[in-house]
């Protein structure tokens, strides 16, 4: 089975790709001008930041970049496309021939290109309503090789890609838009315009099942374009609007060839690789770390800060707690304090967190396991009768725990664990 993807993501520039209109606006048609409305007489002016973002992504996906980049017109008619052509890229795209590294394999990236988003179109009963605020928002189209072999890989790929984009400053809250190419046998079926990861994985699942069904019944799979229906959970044959023959690509003569000058680019971050390094492998521990850092730069900062100096489990515990209480903005000194608490085996309650933040000394956290052990053994040695009574009366156990906890201001749970351990080893005093 082969799955390929064409993913479209919005580039987080302040202004649009070819004009100075804002990329964020609320009221419909409030961020428009002659250029993004395609008014006769207007011409595009290419946004420098869009090129820079695109180059950063290209480098992060290990793509090659030519000496220059240029644009083409892709002609098709639809009410959301103001000029009836989209300015996009083809042969001189920003990047080509790269990959994204997953846990077990690499997914090839065929091409990365810049293009303009069409307007937003709302379908009413028998007409449409169009908001041109979105028209001209810069998009990055990332085209993969058909290297994805399962839904799990699909999900892993999309999340790793989103993570890379997130760390380059992209807004991953915006829904991902993608076209899927799926071939179970020979015929390649394209599922167009799927929105959101869940739909993407679902659409893939249903399309794979459909093709496998046909294949097992030895029926012909038609190479065609389909669309995914979120309600029926099925892909449906859609009469394709246009093909390459009809798009009639020509060079965009209102723009020029842009030389790409070597420049310091934003450093890519590969959360998957970092999680694997931290966890020292690819099991559940890696997954736990990845879940915490994949889309959370502060969490990654905390991990990087504590890495090697505290046990991984302590870091995980603290970061999870900080997540829970929305307190990741905590200062590094306090964070270290919490790590000490965690290392000591003390669960971090909201109260502990508050204490640390206020600079109140958390006595408990100063108690080491060794001290607890010493104190337990001390009590047992001094009161040799306790062991005998313990065999008849389990309450004695709690008495010892209470006594030690009180004396050391230690966490009773921790003390009881230490005590159980000591007893199990057959400590006789």
């Amino acid at each position, binding site marked *: 089975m082969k799955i390929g993807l064409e993913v479209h993501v919005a580039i987080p520039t302040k202004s649009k790709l070819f004009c100075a209109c804002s990329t964020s606006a609320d009221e*419909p048609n409030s961020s428009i001008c002659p250029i993004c409305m395609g008014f006769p007489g207007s011409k595009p002016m*290419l946004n*420098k930041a869009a090129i820079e973002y695109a180059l950063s992504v290209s480098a992060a996906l290990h793509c090659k970049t030519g000496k220059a980049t240029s644009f083409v017109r892709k002609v098709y008619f639809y009410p959301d496309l103001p000029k009836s052509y989209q300015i996009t890229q083809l042969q001189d795209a920003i990047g080509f021939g790269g990959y994204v590294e997953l846990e077990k394999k690499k997914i090839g990236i065929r091409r990365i290109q810049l293009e303009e988003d069409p307007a937003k179109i709302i379908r009413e009963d028998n*007409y*449409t309503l*169009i908001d041109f605020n979105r028209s001209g928002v810069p998009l990055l189209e990332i085209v993969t090789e058909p290297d994805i072999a399962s839904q799990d890989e699909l999900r892993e790929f999309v999340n790793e890609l989103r993570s890379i984009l997130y760390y380059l400053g992209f807004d991953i809250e915006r829904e991902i838009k993608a076209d899927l190419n799926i071939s179970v046998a020979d015929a390649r079926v394209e599922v167009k315009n799927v929105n959101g990861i869940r739909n993407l994985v679902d659409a893939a699942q249903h399309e794979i099942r459909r093709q496998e069904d046909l294949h097992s019944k030895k029926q012909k799979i038609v190479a065609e374009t389909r669309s995914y229906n979120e309600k029926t959970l099925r892909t449906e044959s859609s009469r394709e609007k246009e093909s390459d023959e009809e798009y009639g690509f020509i060079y965009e003569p209102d723009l020029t060839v842009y030389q790409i000058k070597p420049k310091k680019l934003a450093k890519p971050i590969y959360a998957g690789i970092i999680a694997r390094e931290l966890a020292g492998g690819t099991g559940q521990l890696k997954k736990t770390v990845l879940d915490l850092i994949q889309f959370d730069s502060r969490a990654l900062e905390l991990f990087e800060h504590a890495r090697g100096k505290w046990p991984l489990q302590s870091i995980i515990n603290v970061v999870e707690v900080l997540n829970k209480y929305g307190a990741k903005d905590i200062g590094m000194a306090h964070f270290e304090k919490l790590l000490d608490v965690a290392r000591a085996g003390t669960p971090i309650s909201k109260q502990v967190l508050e204490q640390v933040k206020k600079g109140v000394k958390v006595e408990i956290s100063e108690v080491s396991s060794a001290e607890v052990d010493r104190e337990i053994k001390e009590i047992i040695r001094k009161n040799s009768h306790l062991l005998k009574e313990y065999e008849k009366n389990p309450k004695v156990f709690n008495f010892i725990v209470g006594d030690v906890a009180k004396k050391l201001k230690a966490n009773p749970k921790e003390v009881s664990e230490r005590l159980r351990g000591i007893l199990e080893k057959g400590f006789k005093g």
Partner: protein
Amino acid sequence: MEDAEFDRLLKICRLRLSSSERTAIKSDVKEILKYFDTIEKVDTGSLKPAYHPVAIEGRLREDRVEPFDHSDLLLKGTKTHRFYVVGPDV
């Protein structure tokens, strides 16, 4: 050019022709394409296509927001509904 090909072309162009326009343009197209074919014989060697007649250094725009001054005029002649532009059915 066959009838079917010509019709397909009209469809892509979103053009409908009267029967007299159709007859005229169809025969013009045939003749003009024959004329266009004559460039095939020009020996252009290994020359690259000249997308522009002169070399132009690409200039880029800084990423700054500058709202258009006369946005009220943009939708003046356009049918709108609750700030949306009304478009044909899809």
